[in-house]
């Protein structure tokens, strides 16, 4: 997919949201088949199931080198779909590429060395570049972070360096939307991934580094007005704040209540300050993604989690004064 096709596809979606008519949309035709994020996820899931079943089938049939066989078949099919059928951004070709590479990796002897992380990083990077998938790019970076932690004990540094590069990269104008999205995912996901690798002995350094990263991202967010920079700042400052909170000898509930009240107060204050504004930074309702309906679905799916921490509905002999409480969102235990 060349730059023009990629830009046309993204702009077309934006113009559909803006209510543009067919004549304008007709100028933005792209020969590529691609889908929205929700549909991509479904196709990705179904394709992964198919690849896993094919791998299992080859294994059961005793076909030698089943990983290589499945890998070659999957990648060949992906290339056919991309090259001949012009599929990119459907979810199918992405699953075929990454599934194929992972299937091939299973044929490598397991050594248990940290370098294995680099093999997975390479697989995700190759697949990410080929199908221009930012999530694969972020996954590759996360494997590099894990490698840096295992090999050099520098997971946090590696994550924050890459995240900083990403937020700086977001300052310039990119032609390809997929490149922009890669930087966005890296800027938001890597600070979180880095924190998961942090050692307790370096907590002061961790707090300082995350606070510095968060403040840098926040300043840039206000200067450049970019949602991803706000979220990167939130990630950095939240991690730093949580780590500071762990070191303060105040009851957890007091810290949570203060943090919660502060966030509510900040939101209220900022919304109030921006209420009359019509230009610059404003607080008018906008959709960040097309996932409003997906939120509803998530809420519906959450129905299955209804009373997980609540007293059993069939437990009529529950002892007095014991057990959990709650319902419809709040729960606890004694």
């Amino acid at each position, binding site marked *: 997919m060349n730059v023009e096709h990629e830009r046309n596809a993204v702009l077309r979606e934006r113009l559909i949201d803006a209510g543009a008519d067919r004549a304008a949309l007709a100028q933005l035709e792209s020969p590529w088949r691609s889908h929205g994020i929700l549909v991509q996820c479904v196709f990705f899931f179904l394709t992964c199931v198919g690849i896993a079943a094919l791998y299992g089938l080859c294994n059961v049939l005793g076909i030698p080198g089943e990983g290589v066989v499945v890998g070659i078949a999957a990648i060949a099919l992906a290339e056919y779909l991309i090259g001949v059928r012009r599929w990119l951004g459907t979810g199918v070709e992405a699953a075929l590429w990454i599934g194929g590479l992972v299937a091939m990796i299973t044929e490598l002897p397991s050594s248990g060395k940290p370098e294995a992380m680099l093999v997975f990083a390479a697989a995700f990077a190759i697949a990410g570049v080929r199908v221009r998938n930012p999530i694969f790019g972020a996954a590759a970076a996360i494997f590099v972070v894990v490698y840096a932690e295992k090999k050099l004990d520098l997971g946090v540094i590696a994550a924050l360096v890459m995240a900083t590069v990403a937020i700086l990269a977001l300052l310039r104008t990119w032609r390809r939307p997929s490149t922009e999205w890669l930087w966005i995912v890296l800027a938001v996901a890597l600070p979180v991934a880095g924190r998961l690798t942090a050692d307790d002995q370096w907590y002061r350094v961790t707090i300082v580094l995350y606070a510095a990263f968060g403040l840098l991202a926040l300043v840039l967010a206000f200067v450049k007005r970019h949602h991803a920079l706000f979220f990167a700042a939130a990630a950095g400052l939240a991690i730093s704040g949580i780590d500071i909170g762990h070191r303060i000898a105040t009851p957890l509930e007091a810290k949570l209540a203060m943090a919660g009240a502060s966030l509510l107060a900040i939101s209220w204050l900022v919304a109030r300050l921006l209420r009359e504004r019509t230009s610059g930074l404003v*607080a008018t309702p906008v959709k960040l993604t097309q996932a409003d309906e997906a939120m*509803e679905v998530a809420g519906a799916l959450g129905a299955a989690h209804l009373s997980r921490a609540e007293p059993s509905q069939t437990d009529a002999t529950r002892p007095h004064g014991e057990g959990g409480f709650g319902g419809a969102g*709040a729960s606890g235990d004694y």
Partner: protein
Amino acid sequence: MLSFEPELTRLRPLLGDARTDALIARERRENFSIYPELRICAWVGAMLIATAAGIVVTKNFERIGPLAIAVMIGIAAAACYAWVWWRRKSASLVDDFVLLLGALLLSADAGFIETQFHLLGDDWHRHFLILAIAHGAAAYAYRSRMVMSLSISALAAWLGIEQKTFATYEDPIAFATRAAICAAILLVWRALNRVEEFAPLFEHFASVLLLSAGLAMTFENETRTLGCMGTIAVAALVIAWGFRTRREAFVLYAFIYAVIALDILLVSFFDEDALALFVIVGTAIGSIVALIAIHSRFRELRA
């Protein structure tokens, strides 16, 4: 940064000056709304306070005593409802989450009171029904979808629908029956409902419950075939509803449920692993092809 200014300038004759200027202003970030950030911030704040309230209750139960705790939480919940009611004419985006916090505190308080004082005796689980009614009334009074979802959750809890029952395969038939009853109640509620923004909530909850009910029946040998057929039939209805209402989410998750049910049904006919895996490969390919056709048709309808 991304900027589509060159393309928008080129399309100006087709888009019109007003729309083009507005879109270019957005590209240049002359108007930049931090509404999503503020909503997330407020939501996190409400969740933290609700969590803190739960911990306060747990840790100070012995020291403060149950009556004082129940009164404190009740006052806090009432304060949240009162705050939002008082500000309803000049509501800000934060008020939604203050209301949510109030509803969560009310849930916690109701559960706590029932746990400690046993007002309902052996019918203790009826406090979920009371919560469902209270949250439902609040949802209509404040027109809040989030509170309505809590009401539906409480209703389902009252009917005894638990994730652990479904996930651990404990009495899946009972789960399926309860889920089906809950879905039926939601569909009736949907028919009586006069607030348009609540309708999708009822529809999604009812769909997921019905599909889960069908899938739960597949966990038992005696009801497996019936469960698979039921899931596929309900999925077909949900997909048709998705087409009718132009909501693709219905189509997508119903399709996934249908594929899972079909796999279970077909695999149950084969004892050999190789044949079962072959079937799964086949259904995966078939389902991708079918979904492509469904998605294309959906796009045509929406165009």
